[in-house]
């Protein structure tokens, strides 16, 4: 184990430029992936907050009998998607409007504001399709004048999130492919540079696995290093955005670990492919 470690360090010292290049490409691969994942994660957060507020508001025609309203509330409350349904009277609506609008509170008169049914959905039923479906069902009550929900921009946020995820994956994979190729080239150079040493190792009875190990470890180390570098870059970008544009949340440990592990995988894969191919030639 100590020997393998020593060999790995030696590899970095032998080809510092190429080693740095491989680490950088892995870092950029993960950085571009990281940026888009960051966007996706934050949009998801925003969506969650929006979703929690997503409510369907059904405006009730004036003069609707209280019994009919109560029956409808019971009905809607028992929909499988619905968490709760509350009736808001004209007076309550006025109360709220005043609280929210502060200095204009005197402008309002109870008569301006219709009574309404406020519907909150259960988690997991807050995507645009379900919201639309429930809204349509509520619309069928004859005394319901109008149904509103944040249809347009819920849908937009969803689309942005999907786009960000897709872009991140595509760019990340592209960079990962480049990283694998560059790592492969680095390992190939390393194998050729150490051809003499490898042939002597073979001669004295070192196993293929033993000969391969330092190269694999080299790839792994570069991958982990690239992952950490990418993390630093992403964090830097994150704090820059947070300071200048909008406050954003950084990754949790799970995503951080997954990112570094992905880097390690890229490094390992690049060197494994290359070592397998070139060891037989020396």
């Amino acid at each position, binding site marked *: 184990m100590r*020997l393998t470690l020593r060999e790995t360090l030696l590899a970095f010292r032998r080809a510092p430029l190429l080693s740095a290049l491989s680490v950088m490409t892995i870092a950029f691969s993960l950085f571009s992936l990281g940026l888009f994942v960051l966007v996706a994660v934050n949009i998801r957060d925003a969506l969650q907050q929006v979703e929690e507020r997503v409510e369907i508001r059904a405006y009730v025609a004036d003069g609707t009998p209280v019994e009919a309203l109560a029956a409808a509330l019971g009905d809607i409350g028992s929909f499988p998607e619905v968490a709760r349904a509350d009736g808001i009277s004209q007076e309550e609506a006025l109360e709220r409007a005043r609280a929210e609008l502060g200095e204009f509170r005197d402008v309002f008169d109870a008569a301006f504001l219709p009574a309404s049914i406020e519907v909150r959905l259960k988690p997991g039923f807050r995507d645009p399709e379900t919201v639309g479906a429930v809204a349509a069902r509520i619309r069928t009550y004859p005394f319901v004048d109008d149904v509103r929900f944040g249809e347009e921009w819920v849908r937009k946020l969803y689309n942005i999130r999907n786009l960000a995820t897709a872009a991140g994956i595509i760019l990340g994979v592209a960079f990962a492919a480049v990283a694998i190729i560059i790592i492969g080239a680095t390992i190939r150079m390393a194998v050729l540079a150490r051809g*003499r*040493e490898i*042939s*002597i*190792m*073979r*001669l*004295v*009875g*070192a*196993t*293929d696995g*033993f*000969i391969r190990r330092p190269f694999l470890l080299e790839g792994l180390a570069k991958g982990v290093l690239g992952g950490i570098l990418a993390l630093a870059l992403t964090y830097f970008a994150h704090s820059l955005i947070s300071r200048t544009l909008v406050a954003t949340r950084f990754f949790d440990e799970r995503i951080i670990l997954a990112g570094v592990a992905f880097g390690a995988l890229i490094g390992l894969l690049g060197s494994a492919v290359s070592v397998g191919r070139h060891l037989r030639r020396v």
Partner: protein
Amino acid sequence: MIRFMHVSKEYARGGLALDDVSFHIAKGEFAFLTGPSGAGKSTILKLVYMEEFPTEGDVRVAGVHAGTIRRGEIAQLRRKLGVVFQDFRLLEERTAAQNIAFALEVTDAPRANIATKVSRLLTQVGLSSKANALPRELSGGEQQRVAIARALVNDPFVLIADEPTGNLDDRATRGVFQLLRDINAAGTAVLMATHNLELVRRSDYRVIEINRGQLVYDSAEAAADAAVDRSTPA
């Protein structure tokens, strides 16, 4: 220990290098492999340490057959043989002691006694004072002694030497050859390819002569034939 049975070897590019060669090297034996350049001596040695494989016939070394050995077993076989070359093949950036230790480090040798083993081997080849010298700071003869010490790390049953004195002057040649004799006297078989007929003539070891890929003379068979001739008068 080493048995060639009707071995032919044809290189993909280069034609027939060995043609129906058969011989047997016994445990603890010393045998020269002679013949003109390009005869096939190095090819025979490569077949012994299984860097090459026969096109026809079978090579058997320490119980394993060239025809059935698996890739993973070759490393195990190599640990039972020592190989030295004309060009020494030492690692330039490592000292004499490190070159010897290297062969132990890259096999599964127990770490604890590497240092003692290396110093014992250096003493055996007469280089205990040069342990920390780099190859370029050593004479050709000294470098070959380091290579021999490295070949001996795993107590091989046979030492395979491909023109070990090819790059050495007379004095160094005599020294290295004496070392090989000592190693053989201690029980290790030696199979040595050489152009140096002077060495061959001065010792009475077995001689196998190759010419154009064919075994043209084997002193062991010649002696056996002579014995047969004497015991059965015409």
